[in-house]
């Protein structure tokens, strides 16, 4: 059995768990409401140029929430439920299991993109026309992949943290701002912008909006950056998960929640 098969089985497990856990699907209830609010504000302000932002933002928020909140709970929930000990005792590295599971979690979040588009089309009669569909599709895929890497990183960071809830609750908004999800980074203070370049969401948000407007001239650089940041996050997440297991074995906290 290959490592990829293990990831696939972990993915299937998480898909089943998410289907049976209404809390995991909450993001799909929230996304249409976010789209409605953002679109209503945009139309009320007579800003048709900002419709793309209003439709794309809930998708990116869905990805971020699933990476931060739900993916971050994967390992702590196994620890709390006493599944972590037999998992560590198995020959397959925990990183593969976490990778498969966070991928499933992120894909649930990605469904918010589709919902948001539907709400705009059916609810507001605003069909988002994409001028560069190829770039847009590539940007969505790259964003999802980067989200998997980031979810892996967040899972490691949150699992190792002693203040999990505080971390999960406090990391949402800063990244919406740094990611330029709800408004372009150009309206933010200048000193914030260099920091935002390290957040894949900022590249994704800009590339997605630009591909809708047909102005994504630097798309190869943006795509490469999204993938590079996602890969770096994935590597960091795998290292942290490995470290989590080793630390627990050394400190004797494998069975602790």
């Amino acid at each position, binding site marked *: 059995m290959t490592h990829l098969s293990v990831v696939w089985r972990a993915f299937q497990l998480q898909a089943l768990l998410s289907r049976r856990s209404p809390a995991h699907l909450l993001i799909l209830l929230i996304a249409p409401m976010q789209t409605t609010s953002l679109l209503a504000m945009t139309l009320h302000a007579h800003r048709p140029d900002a419709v793309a932002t209003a439709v794309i933002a809930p998708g990116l928020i869905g990805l971020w929430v699933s990476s931060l909140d739900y993916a971050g709970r994967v390992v702590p929930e196994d620890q709390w*439920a*006493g599944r972590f*000990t037999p998992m560590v005792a*198995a*020959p397959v590295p925990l990183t593969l299991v976490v990778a498969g599971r966070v991928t499933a979690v992120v894909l649930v979040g990605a469904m918010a993109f589709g919902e948001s588009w539907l709400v705009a089309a059916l609810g507001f009669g605003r069909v988002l026309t994409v001028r560069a569909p190829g770039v847009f599709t590539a940007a969505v895929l790259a964003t999802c992949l980067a989200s998997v890497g980031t979810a892996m990183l967040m899972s490691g960071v949150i699992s190792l943290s002693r203040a999990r809830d505080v971390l999960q609750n406090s990391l949402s908004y800063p990244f919406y701002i740094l990611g330029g999800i709800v408004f372009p980074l150009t309206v933010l203070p200048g000193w914030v912008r260099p920091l935002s370049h390290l957040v894949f969401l900022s590249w994704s948000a800009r590339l997605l909006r630009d591909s809708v407007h047909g102005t994504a001239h630097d798309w190869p650089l943006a795509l490469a950056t999204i993938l590079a940041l996602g890969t770096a996050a994935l590597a960091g997440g795998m290292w942290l998960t490995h470290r989590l297991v080793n630390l627990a074995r050394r400190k004797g906290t*494998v069975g602790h929640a």
Partner: protein
Amino acid sequence: MEAAVAASSLRRMYERRRKDAVVALDDLTLTIAQNEIHGLLGPNGAGKTTLVKILSTVLLPTSGTARVLGHDVVAETKAVRSLVGLVLGGDRGLYDRLTARRNLLFWGALYKLDSRTVRRRADALLERVGLAERADDPVERFSRGMRQRLHLARGLLHEPRVLFLDEPTSGLDPVAAVAFRRLVLELRDEGRTFLLATHDMDEATALCDRVSLIDRGRLLLTDDTSNVGRILGDRECVDFVHEDDALARDLATLPSVLDVERLDDRWRAHTADREGSRRVLAWLVERDVLTGRHAQPTLEEVYLRTVGDRGMRV
């Protein structure tokens, strides 16, 4: 033949903030032969689970070595993990919202079993542990005993040669516990080795070839289960039931009687030898006490005398 488990001078300490470290295992040396059922007895906090965790690679020893079928638990973690099965007692440890079968399919993947193999083994194991009819029910609807059986099925999924069972029958009803013991004996006949950490003396007596008593991380004794009574000094005993304390006092004055003690539901006269026991039995019959019988200390008595009566303290 290579030992199934060989631990040598094993020590495990737990560091604590601003307090002295706790020694959970202290210089423990233990060998378990292949195909043996070995009981690990001791009070709460004795170090039983710590030993099981070290041997199953989820905990690193502070010093000393441990090998499972010749593989070092620290240096050859991967090899050890494929050879051992860990069965922890309790309600937790499963995906409650998934069915028993789904749980096994996932855990099979962690042992690199392909889909076809894991499906075949899961069906066979669910049948074997009596859960075949509930295979497609969510685990959250299972009783504690059913969960326990599913834990065992999970531990057996990759066909390990050595199984570590930590309180495996806690929560099982008597019928299920007997069935569980029968299953363990069957599995031993298939060539597997068991290390059974338990508080249940009847279970240890019924199942184990040898037992080890540990307390405060130290190994107090290891012996054949059938010989363990000798540890109390080869003492002979006669047990009898009688209401009258005066009779017990009279019996204690006989030259062949070392002492007479009150147990929960009976008296016990300790004698120096078999002849002494014979005289005590005859003395009791003369006084119309027909409940007397020759006895040897049980495993429970050995345990209580060796570990001591510490009440609820750990």
